[in-house]
């Protein structure tokens, strides 16, 4: 999956709208993921997963900032996320299927807060971008 020039423009465009809400959207994405796909909670037995949890807020911020980092280096996502890729491969070992689930919840959050900005074309580009990020994070799994 290759990001076209238009995809990159679309992704940068939508992220310019959401980056000021990064922490909020990151936390909401995680919360929705834990509620919608309860099996994802298995990766966080050490977390307080109640609504408003400080841990979810902090982790949501981390996830959102990683996505923003990828957007800021959209021509070299694998370079930008190389350390995160190592982390996921060696330590976290989150099953690849879960990245789609997180991506779905992120798209839902964007749809809720910026429905008019999430045109079908932007939706397509954003979905591609999230796939690209997932591919980088799982690239070193085996």
């Amino acid at each position, binding site marked *: 999956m290759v990001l076209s020039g238009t995809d990159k423009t679309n992704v940068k465009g939508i992220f310019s709208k959401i980056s000021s809400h990064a922490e909020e959207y990151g936390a909401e994405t995680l*919360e*929705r993921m834990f*509620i*919608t*796909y309860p099996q994802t909670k298995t990766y966080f037995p050490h977390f307080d997963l109640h609504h408003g949890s400080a841990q979810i807020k902090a982790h949501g911020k981390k996830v959102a900032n990683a996505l923003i980092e990828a957007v800021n280096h959209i021509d070299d996502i694998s370079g930008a996320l190389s350390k995160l890729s190592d982390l996921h491969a060696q330590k976290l070992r989150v099953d690849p299927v879960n990245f789609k689930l997180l991506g*779905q*919840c992120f*798209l*839902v959050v964007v*749809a*809720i*807060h910026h*429905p008019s900005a*999430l*045109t*079908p*074309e932007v*939706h*397509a580009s954003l*979905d591609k971008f999230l796939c690209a990020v997932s591919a980088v994070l799982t690239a070193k799994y085996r």
Partner: protein
Amino acid sequence: WTAEEKQLIASVWNKVNVEECGAEALARLLIVYPWTQRFFSSFGNLSSPTAILGNPKVRAHGRKVLTSFGEAVKNLDNIKTTYSKLSELHCEKLHVDPENFRLLGDILIIVLASHFARDFTPACQFAWQKLVGVVAHALARKYH
């Protein structure tokens, strides 16, 4: 299905404009996952997002699909039976890979989220994600 899930599903469904949401969901499927266009070679112009969004056959078919979805909403405890014939149709005549049902289900969730905003609570999303999963499973059930 818990009583709460049924209530959440119904409360969203009662406010859905089936024609609009159905058209939008199918159009987005064809735009976001362009390989799904393989099933619609008879639909005419699908050459761009604008063409797809304005295509009357896409709109009509989207409405048909979401209307059928309404049958699941009305028969939550009996979805397998409700979709038995449709499942055979999608396998034997339409030759649709069931993965496409999952893709359309996910797209529908995003369309609902964009229309209902905060009213599409996490609990709502859970119930609806469960529903689209059950529908996809029911449609795939008679495949052979």
